[in-house]
């Protein structure tokens, strides 16, 4: 089973080689991968159908308690088989559809990776693994949607899809982590066994919101549905795959999967039904507004997703059964229809239904595929679509008035979809023949296999209700509801049942919709034009707004003025100095207390000797001289004063080495400054506007005072002199040096000095690097 | 020749500053001095033999005396309340009779350190030394004082 999820990735990695070897037949070659997986899954399906599960687990990140666990129950298997089955046909189809395209190899690799992600998603037992595959579908679909990368619309569609689904992905990640945090397990199979651990927790609402956020974005629920039509910029095989059985169904899968853990509550039902219902109607109406075949199908996909979410929300046995059957039906017919649309586009050169007609003669096989799919979509008996509809009506009939309202919504939605199905089947194929950009003729076998086979499956399944019940419904419901459902799908018409009449009503309305399609389209288009904006345009507004906002913020923060960068640092310094001192009573030592005595006792003149005062005064005067210096060179000279003063302070307080070095360095600084200044001619004065002066001055004084106060606070304690005592005691006897400072430098802390001389050497290299290109740049400069 | 002499001087200087006149230390001092001179080998020209110790000593004695007088002189001037009127600054061209670099340098430096005079510049043709005088009563006296004092003694030393 792990093989099922991982084989496509391996195949994708090998695709460049396979493609270069197999050339135009690479589609056929690579289609064997999903076909093999399909057969593999069928082979292991026995115990699942019997109501059990199969599992496989590998150690992955044991240090984090993560295993790469796969498990398959009915739900997973239905999805996985659909993915692999449809996937086989799509790969085949792609091989033909992109014949001769320079990036066909890349495309097939992306498709296989996507399929692998999808299979991994539905087979994963570990929630984190599920999330990873979830994200992988987003990323691979991004590459697929943007496949025609020269087109801005394709790029936009790809980014849009990725952004929206990534927001959902982040919700899922946090949701998964939260669920793990609350339940203690990463494994879905274990989580299900824990019963109400999440439902009963105070944070249930948050967990639910996160999972719904994930599912709704992925499954394009209103109002986050807008990315899906834009994803039609992708090549048609992508649309056929992503929007029938795979990517968008990931959200549905997640909701179904979480039903035992999160479902069944009032808020669950309410939210899912409401959003699903609105999405159903919205998508169906949207389909009627469009004339582009793919856009129409995209909108119906939104509607179908709404329908599935609604059914999961209802959560009853019949609703779940309907959901399962509808999923299979939808996968078959929607993939088929997309492939038909692609074939039409490929052969006739347009997808606009108003520009197409009479293709049944030219593309008869394609028409058969289209008809099979559309009829399933309409829900005629003998197709699997019929059972889906029956089941969903069954779920609602006989409920309270709220349920009846939902039923009405369903009927209307189904009717609209039926109308659309008729349009899609009849307009291009049976309508009056119209000239098309290309002279249409039948598509190649690889492109026909899909629609015909899928249509056939739809019919076959429609003819085998018992098989459907036993092999699809039972294990699926077992997985979601935890118990098997009685097989009750029947082909026989029971006129006493209200269901048949509801179906009839649906068809009738569908025909009306088909008849009035033109008028409805006009009305809808006027309506949307009247509103003027929609979620899609809002997306642009948000994105561009974000970009403008980002630019504003960035320009404001990174304005390029060093002075303000420094100002920020010093403001932070002031806060860092004062905030802890004020918050933690660091200034208490100033305030006189009973024990410490009064101020008069503290105001003693420090015991400095006259010449010491002189040197301190010299330092202050030197600093003032720098401050008031008119030109830079005078400032440099004044710099020498404070340096000398500092050296003398060191000297007077027992630090001859320091004084020595300080003097030498200070003089040398003045020398180097002078040498450099000798080659520069600069403006003499330091112009600083008053407000800057006041601001800079205040900040400087505050920081200086803060440093002084913090230092004084430190000085209130006694110093632990362990280190110096050690050095003093051992310098001569052990380290053989009388100058303790030097011994520290070359022995006790010689490692520091090693770094220090490296800094000196580095300064040499750096300065040479600076000066080195002087000639070249100045010669080539303007 | 003069290089070897300088090495000996530097070695003795080394022994002096390190306070250790042992043979080994003198040897080491010679090495250090030799290293320093190695770097300077292109810059030291033949300086002429510094022969006569007596003349040198008399020059040194004259110099030290003049230096002391000079310092006191300046100190007294500085302390005068009527500072402005006591001064008569001037820049005077003093003709040079010494010609070698070493002689000119020695002369100029000594002039700077002695009363009331300061060497400002040497003319490009080395004929004249421009001297700043603090209180110039008479230019001939000034020039003569220099010619008969330091300049003559320096010539004697360098011959």
């Amino acid at each position, binding site marked *: 089973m792990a093989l099922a999820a991982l084989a496509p990735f391996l195949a994708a990695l090998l695709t460049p080689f396979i493609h270069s070897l197999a050339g135009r037949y690479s589609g056929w070659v690579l289609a064997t991968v999903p076909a093999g997986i399909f057969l593999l899954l069928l082979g292991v399906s026995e115990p699942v159908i019997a109501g059990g599960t199969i599992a496989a687990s590998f150690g992955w990140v044991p240090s*984090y308690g993560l295993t790469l666990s796969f498990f398959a129950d009915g739900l997973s298997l239905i999805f996985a088989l659909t993915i692999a089955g449809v996937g086989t046909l799509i790969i085949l189809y792609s091989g033909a559809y992109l014949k001769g395209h320079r990036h066909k190899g890349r495309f097939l690799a992306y498709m296989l990776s996507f399929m692998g992600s999808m299979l991994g998603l539905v087979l994963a037992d570990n929630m984190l693994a599920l999330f990873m595959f979830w994200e992988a579908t987003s990323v691979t679909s991004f590459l697929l949607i943007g496949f025609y990368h020269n087109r801005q619309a394709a790029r936009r569609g790809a980014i849009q899809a990725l952004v929206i689904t990534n927001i959902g992905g982040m919700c899922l990640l946090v949701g998964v982590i939260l669920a793990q945090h609350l339940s203690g397990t990463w494994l879905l199979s274990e989580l299900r066994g824990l019963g109400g651990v999440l439902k009963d927790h105070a944070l249930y609402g948050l967990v639910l919101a996160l999972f719904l956020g994930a599912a709704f974005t992925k499954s394009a629920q209103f109002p986050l549905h807008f990315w899906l039509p834009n994803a039609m910029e992708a090549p048609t095989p992508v649309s056929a795959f992503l929007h029938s059985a795979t990517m968008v169904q990931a959200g549905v899968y997640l909701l179904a999967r979480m039903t035992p853990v999160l479902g069944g509550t009032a808020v669950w039902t309410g939210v899912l039904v409401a959003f699903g219902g609105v999405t159903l109607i919205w998508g169906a109406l949207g389909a009627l507004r469009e004339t582009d075949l793919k856009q129409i199908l995209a909108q119906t996909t939104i509607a179908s997703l709404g329908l599935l979410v609604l059914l999961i929300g209802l959560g009853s046995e019949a609703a779940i059964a309907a959901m399962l059957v509808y999923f299979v039906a939808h996968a078959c017919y929607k993939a088929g229809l997309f492939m038909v649309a692609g074939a039409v586009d490929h052969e006739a050169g347009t997808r606009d239904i108003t520009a197409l007609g009479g293709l049944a003669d030219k593309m008869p096989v394609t028409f058969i595929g289209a008809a099979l799919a559309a009829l399933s979509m309409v829900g005629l008996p003998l197709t699997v679509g019929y059972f889906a509809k029956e089941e969903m009506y069954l779920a609602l009939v006989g409920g309270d008035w709220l349920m009846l309202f939902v039923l009405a919504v369903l009927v209307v939605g189904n009717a609209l979809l039926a109308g659309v199905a008729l349009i899609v089947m009849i307009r291009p194929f049976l309508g009056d023949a119209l000239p098309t950009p290309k002279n249409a003729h039948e598509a190649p076998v690889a492109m026909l296999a899909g629609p015909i086979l899928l249509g056939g499956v739809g019919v076959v399944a429609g003819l085998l209700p018992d098989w459907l019940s036993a092999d699809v419904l039972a294990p699926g419901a077992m997985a979601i509801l935890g118990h098997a459902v009685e097989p009750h799908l029947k082909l026989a018409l029971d006129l006493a049942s209200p269901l048949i009449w509801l179906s009839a009503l649906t068809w009738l309305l569908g025909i009306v919709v088909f008849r009035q399609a033109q008028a409805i389209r006009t009305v809808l288009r006027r309506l949307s034009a009247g509103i003027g904006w929609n979620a899609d345009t809002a997306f642009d507004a948000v994105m561009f707004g974000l970009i403008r906002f980002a630019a504003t913020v960035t320009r404001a923060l990174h304005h390029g003025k060093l002075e303000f960068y420094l100002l920020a640092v010093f403001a932070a310094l002031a806060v860092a100095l004062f905030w802890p001192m004020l918050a933690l009573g660091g200034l208490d030592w100033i305030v006189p207390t009973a024990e410490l005595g009064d101020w008069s006792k503290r105001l003693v003149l420090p015991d400095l000797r006259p010449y010491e005062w002189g040197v301190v005064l010299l330092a202050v005067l030197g600093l003032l001289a720098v401050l008031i210096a008119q030109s830079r060179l005078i400032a440099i000279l004044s710099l020498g004063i404070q340096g000398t003063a500092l050296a003398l302070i060191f000297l007077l307080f027992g630090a001859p080495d320091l004084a020595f070095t300080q003097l030498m360095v200070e003089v040398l600084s003045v020398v180097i400054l002078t040498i450099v200044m000798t080659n520069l001619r600069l403006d003499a004065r330091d112009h600083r506007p008053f407000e800057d002066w006041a601001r800079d001055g205040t900040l400087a004084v505050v920081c200086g005072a803060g440093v002084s106060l913090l230092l004084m606070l430190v000085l209130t304690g006694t*110093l*632990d002199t362990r280190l110096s005592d050690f050095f003093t005691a051992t310098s001569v006897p052990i380290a053989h040096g009388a100058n303790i400072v030097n011994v520290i430098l070359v022995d006790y802390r010689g490692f520091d000095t090693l770094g220090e001389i490296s800094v000196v050497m580095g300064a040499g290299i750096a300065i040479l690097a600076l000066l080195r290109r002087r000639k070249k740049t100045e010669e080539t400069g303007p | 020749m003069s290089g070897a002499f300088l090495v000996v001087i530097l070695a003795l200087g080394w022994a002096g500053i390190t306070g250790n006149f042992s043979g080994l230390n003198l040897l080491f001092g010679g090495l250090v001095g030799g290293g320093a001179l190695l770097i300077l080998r292109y810059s030291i020209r033949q300086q002429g033999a510094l022969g006569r110790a007596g003349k040198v000593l008399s020059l040194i004695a004259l110099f030290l005396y003049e230096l002391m007088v000079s310092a006191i002189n300046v100190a007294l001037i500085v302390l005068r309340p009527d500072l402005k009127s006591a001064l008569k600054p001037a820049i005077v061209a003093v003709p040079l009779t010494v010609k070698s670099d070493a002689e000119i340098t020695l002369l100029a430096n000594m002039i700077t350190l002695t009363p009331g005079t300061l060497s400002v510049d040497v003319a490009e043709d080395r004929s004249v030394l421009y001297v700043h005088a603090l209180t110039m009563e008479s230019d001939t006296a000034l020039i003569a004082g220099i010619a008969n004092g330091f300049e003559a003694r320096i010539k004697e030393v360098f011959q």
Partner: protein
Amino acid sequence: MTQLPQAMIETATSAADWVLVLPVVLALMGSAALLVVRRSNRLPLLGAVLVIVAIIACEISLLLRIVSEGPLSMTMGKWLPPFGISLTADLFGAGFALAAAVVTLVVVLYAEIDREGNDGKDGFHSMVLLLLAGVTGSFLTGDLFNLYVWFEVMLIASFGLIVSGSSPLQLDGAVKYGFLNFLATTLFLLALGLTYGLLGTLNMADIMLVAPDANRAAMTGIAALLLLAFGMKAAAFPVNAWLPASYHTPTPAVSALFAGLLTKVGAYALLRALVAVLPDSREMLEPVLAVLAVATLVIAPLGAIAETHLRRAVGFFVIGGIGAILAGLSLPDVIGIAGAGIYIFHAILAMTALYMVVGLIEVRTGASDTRQMGGLYAASAPLSILFFLLILAVAGVPPFLGFWPKLLLLEAGVADAELGWVGSALVVALVINAILTLIAGTRLWSHVFWRNGPEGQPASGEPMPLVAPTPRVRLAFGAVSALVLGVVLIGLWPNPLIEVGQRAAADIVDPGRYVEAVGLAEVEP
């Protein structure tokens, strides 16, 4: 004769212990040796590669040793700690040092792109080794003042590298980089002086022991100063302006080296100083840390969205990553610290690789602004793959390396969310950061790779012409590919990394083993 106190370590030091100090010393002496031979043509490159390989070998054996035996310490000059300078390596320090050496090796090979017709006279390889010495020293030292010295070694080497070439653009960037970074180390020194005045010691393990008894206000003030100084080095908001002002100005190889190493050392210093050494002060500063983390996480990717200069944009990714690390420091349980640490590891590899790929993009398109770029997707599949993988890794998309630390951080945040606002705020900020980063990344991808040519060029027609790769470019490409492959493989098989990360974090949160390794037994109060 008075009795001498015991001054030196009695036991002999085995030569095997030298793997702790050799990486630093080899880098330093290698740098010096290359300087001596800098007028030779090929020796600098060859020498640099040999030295770095030797360093990597030492660091691998060091890491293995620490994995099996716990933190390792050596006090220079045989003096008893805390009197001598102790080099003390735990898993984080050794791991980061190894990652740093590996990316440096890759960058040295990559840098051959820019060195067409360049002899060794500019001292490039010397400076690279000096930078590596500073970085390695910072990661391995157990002494606060010694850390300052290595910071400065790193800083001066980065000065030399950032101006190498001395174009006016570089000089402008270097002025801002230079002043702000030197100011940061000066503030560090200020904090150090106060630390000594308060505690009387500089050895980190020793500080751990005596800090709890110190004046709380002063200790917290010092910690705040350290936070400011290291925050500047790490480029945390709001003192990060130097990074976008300068990282795009040197050659891409230098940008790459900086991105991988410099800010990470700042972040590591924060981790070491605040979480391990001064945990009490960190607790006081936790709200500040959290606010800084949130602001950095949210604001940095905006810059990446707004910027059209490709390397500047990438610089904002670097800053965003620092936000993630700060988030880990605000959530100091083992999981959060492990997240921060693994993020540092990830960033060392991924950010370096990203800059190098960007450099290749600049070479191929001959432009540095995304407005003038396009057509790379059709032209170069390998380059596309590298860039795409790295964007995903940086955005934290699974299963690439960047995902794992974010996962740990989110888990720590979720766990902390029940205790207060910090956890929830950080979770939200991390999520926003991931989304914004992905938006920025896909925009860059779309403009540079997918779009057919520069802005305004029609979509149809041939993609824009590209500069053909030279052999040096191919060498560079190979080097980067190897690094990216590493990022991908570690992402796919993160178990060793996460295991080591968690153990390392455990040692940070409970530094008993660290203190013991230094040789300062925990003293019972």
